[in-house]
C-alpha cells in the first residue's frame, strides 16, 4: 500500500463510518463513473427492532411474497455463531436484498445492492443469539417484498 492511500485511509478514519469505502475505492481507481457506491446505512444497521430497521431501509409496507423469494435457512442450527442464509428471488429487476434477524441486538445483518446483470441470489452466514426469525427483504422494480423463516438455535453438546 503506498503513501497516498495511507493518507486517504487516515482521512477516512477521521471521517469514520460510511464514506470509507467510497473514498478508498476512489483512491484505488476502482470506482467507475456512474457506479456510485451506496453509503453504509448507519441508522439501519443500528436498528434495535424490525420496525426501526425497515423504516431506515425506506420500506413502507413490504408485501409478503413466499412464491417469488426463496429463503433457505437451516431449520435447526447447531450453533448460532454460523447460520447460513441464502436468498434467491425470481422477481425481475432485483435491486436490493436485505437479511434481518428479528431477535438480534442489531436486527439488520446485511444489505446487498444488486447491479443489473447480477442475479437476485446471495448466500452469506449470520450470527443468531437465540431461536428467531430470519427475514429476507427483496426490493425489485422499486417495490419491497419479504419472507420470513424460523431458525431454531439449539443448546450445544456436552459443552464443547
Amino acid at each position, binding site marked *: 500500500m503506498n503513501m497516498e492511500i495511507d493518507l486517504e485511509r487516515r482521512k477516512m478514519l477521521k471521517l469514520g463510518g460510511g464514506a470509507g469505502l467510497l473514498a478508498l475505492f476512489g483512491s484505488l481507481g476502482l470506482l467507475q463513473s456512474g457506479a456510485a457506491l451506496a453509503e453504509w446505512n448507519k441508522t439501519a444497521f443500528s436498528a434495535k427492532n424490525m420496525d426501526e430497521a425497515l423504516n431506515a431501509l425506506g420500506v413502507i409496507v413490504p408485501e409478503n411474497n413466499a412464491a417469488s423469494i426463496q429463503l433457505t435457512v437451516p431449520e*435447526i442450527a447447531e450453533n448460532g455463531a454460523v447460520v447460513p442464509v441464502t436468498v434467491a428471488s425470481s422477481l425481475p429487476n432485483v435491486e436490493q436484498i436485505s437479511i434481518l434477524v428479528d431477535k438480534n441486538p442489531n436486527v439488520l445483518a446485511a444489505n446487498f445492492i444488486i447491479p443489473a446483470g447480477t442475479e437476485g441470489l446471495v448466500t452469506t452466514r449470520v450470527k443468531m443469539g437465540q431461536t428467531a426469525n430470519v427475514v429476507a427483504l427483496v426490493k425489485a422494480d422499486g417495490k419491497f417484498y419479504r419472507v420470513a423463516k424460523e431458525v*431454531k438455535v*439449539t*443448546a450445544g*453438546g*456436552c*459443552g464443547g
Partner: protein
Amino acid sequence: MNAKQIFGMVVAASFAAATLPAQAASLDAKTAEIIKRDFRDKGIAKATRVNQDELQAACSKYVDKVPTKLKHKLEAEQEQAVKWPADGKYMGDWKAGEKLAQSGRGMTWSDKPEDPAGGNCYNCHQLSAKEIAYGTIGPSLLHFGKTRGNTEEIQRYAYGRIYNAKAYNACANMPRFGHMGILSEAQIKDLVALLLDPESPVNK
C-alpha cells in the same frame, strides 16, 4: 537373517495374533502406568482422578461386561452405600429440577470450585417434550411419572437410581450423582420431582 531379526519377527507375529492372557495382563499394567504418568492436575481436576475404585477397574477390565457373580457383588456394595433421605421424603421442586436437568456443567477442569454441578440429564435423556435438544445415550424419560404413577416406592426407586445408578447395573453409563458427591440430597429430590410430579413438564 540374524537371530535378532528372527526374534523381532516372532514378537511381531505374536502381537499380530490375538493378544494372549499374559500379554493382556502386561498391557493392562502398562496402560495403568502410562495413565498415571501422563495425566496432570488442572484446575479442580486433580491427577488422582485417574485412580480407579474397584467398580471402575472391573468395568474397564471387562469393557462393561463384568462376570455375573462379580456384577452382583459390586451392585450389592453400591446399594449398601446409598444414603437415603433422613426425613423419608423423596420429592423436591420440579422447577429447580428442570434447571438442574438442563445444566451440563460441573467438575471439569474449566469449572470453578464454587460453580455448582448440573444434572446433565438432557445430555442423555429425553425429559420435557418441549426440549428438543436431548440426548439418547440413556432411555427417554418422557412421561416417566405418568406411566409409573407417583407412589412412594417409585419415588424411592427414582431417588436411588439417581443417587447411584450402579446399584442397579454395575457398569451403567450413568454417573453416581449422590455417591460421588456431584449432587446434594436436595438436588436429587428436585430431580425426582421433575420425573414424578404430575405438574412437571415431563408428565405433560
